[in-house]
């Protein structure tokens, strides 16, 4: 516990403020160039959980053509920059969303499409639906509507583009800074033994994004229940066969 304390203190000293930039003038130029490239080349992973997914094909194909803005669909979290969550999120789905989100390389952005991601929408009274998406992971842009039309989706993506270009889209840092809060909300839904393969605390340390909200009672609970990840057992087994020794 004392080791943890010391890292918290170190994090405080090195803490990077939101919007703070380096002092070297060339670093500014480089940062601006990178932000511009990031805003003009967004690879999106569309996690199609609900009805909003049906509005994405017209937004990507001939009618509205997202590629002219540099937006392309990608298929794995490793390659993606944006996570599009298109519709209501059941508790079981949310586990997969968390796994996907944590595997995406930073800087990463989340867009919640449809009213269901804002406040539960028509699933407000459902027992199996996670209502407010931003309780569980930081969201950059919400696109409300039931469902929003492709014009609205592209409008939302343009807002995100502008935010990235000006350096305001920093929600991915929020996840590291307030990990204890997000983990607590996740534990409420998934139980105390919830864990993911990605070591968020180590990543936060790597980016110097540790604050006093990163570690807390929930991360202590995680540490208590955490089991080392092991590779799955390899088995070649036909139906009705006994496993060979």
């Amino acid at each position: 516990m004392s080791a943890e304390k010391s890292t918290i203190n170190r994090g405080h000293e090195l803490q990077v403020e939101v919007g703070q930039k380096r002092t070297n003038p060339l670093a500014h130029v480089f940062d601006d160039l990178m932000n511009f490239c990031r805003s003009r080349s967004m690879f999106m992973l569309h996690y199609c959980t609900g009805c909003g997914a049906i509005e994405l094909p017209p937004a990507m194909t001939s009618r509205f053509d997202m590629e002219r803005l540099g937006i392309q669909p990608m298929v794995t979290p490793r390659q993606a920059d944006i996570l599009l969550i298109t519709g209501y999120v059941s508790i079981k789905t949310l586990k997969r969303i968390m796994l996907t989100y944590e595997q995406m390389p930073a800087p990463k952005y989340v867009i919640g499409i449809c009213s269901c991601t804002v406040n539960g929408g028509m699933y407000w009274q459902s027992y199996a639906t996670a209502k407010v998406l931003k309780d569980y992971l930081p969201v950059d842009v919400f696109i409300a509507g039931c469902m929003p039309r492709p014009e609205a989706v592209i409008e939302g993506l343009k807002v995100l583009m502008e935010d990235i270009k000006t350096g305001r889209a920093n929600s991915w840092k929020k996840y590291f800074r307030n990990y204890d809060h997000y983990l607590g909300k996740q534990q409420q839904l998934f139980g105390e033994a919830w864990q993911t393969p990605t070591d968020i605390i180590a990543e936060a340390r790597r980016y110097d994004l540790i604050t006093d909200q990163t570690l807390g009672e929930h991360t202590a609970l995680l540490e208590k229940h955490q089991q080392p990840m092991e590779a799955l057992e390899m088995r070649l087994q036909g139906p009705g066969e006994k496993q060979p020794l």
Partner: protein
Amino acid sequence: MSVSHLIVELVLMPLVAFVVGLGMVLMMRKIAARLQRRVGPPFLQPIYDILKLYGKQTQISHGMIHEMGIIMAVGGYIAAETLLPVPGMDGLADKGGLVTLAYVMMVPSLGLALGVGQCANPNGSIGISRALTAMLAYDIPFILVIFGVAWVYGTTNLADMIAIQQQGGPQTWGVMQMPLLALAGLITLPAMLGKHPYEIYIAPAEIATGPMVEMGGKFMGGLFVMQCFQIYTVGVLYTTLFLGGGENWLTFLAKIFAVVAVPMSIAYLFPRYRTEDVLRLMWKWPVLIGLVGLAVVMK
């Protein structure tokens, strides 16, 4: 030629190849977009993509071999560029020749296989096994074609081939002297590029882009760079063998862009072939046409 002159050429040739390759990637994406009645990406889109991928803050490496694999994939093509003569620069073309080039062009696939192997993702393993099978499919007609071309010109030296074709004018171009081999080469071209309809090893919806499944950040950026080189290499090789190389940069660029545009324009007519269909198609038609072409040129 002095050593310093050679070194300048060895640096310049891959750089030129990269810039031209970026243009080719843009052209392919534009053609695809126009065929689908879309606007397509903006002019600098390939550069934005590569810069962004290299500028990612999280770079997830799966180990030493993963990184070496990407270096092999890009490095293999950089080596290939120094063997391909362009107007005004011959590089190592005199010393290398067609056989070395055919060997060097296989290195990137093998490097990719090594790198993907360490990622230990089953989708990646499926993808790379399909990619290597596809390589087996298109290499047979490819070797037939370059054997026929070397037989006709009596040399494996690419610089000599270009000199022979440029002295005789367009009627001595490879495409006039051995039209059947040129046709076989043209059918093999899209398979070498790994584009529609031969992209079963990428198959985004089924195996999540196969070899690229675990690649993010600079690794993906490396693969984007490799793609630029790959398209350039295939285009320049076809131009050198059959279209008389380039008299100057203007005709050279016009020829290589036209060569790459042909397979891209018909790519979306066909649905994706399965691996065994690729093998059957490649070993049947280009090999058949290539063998007839060989018989004609060897008499």
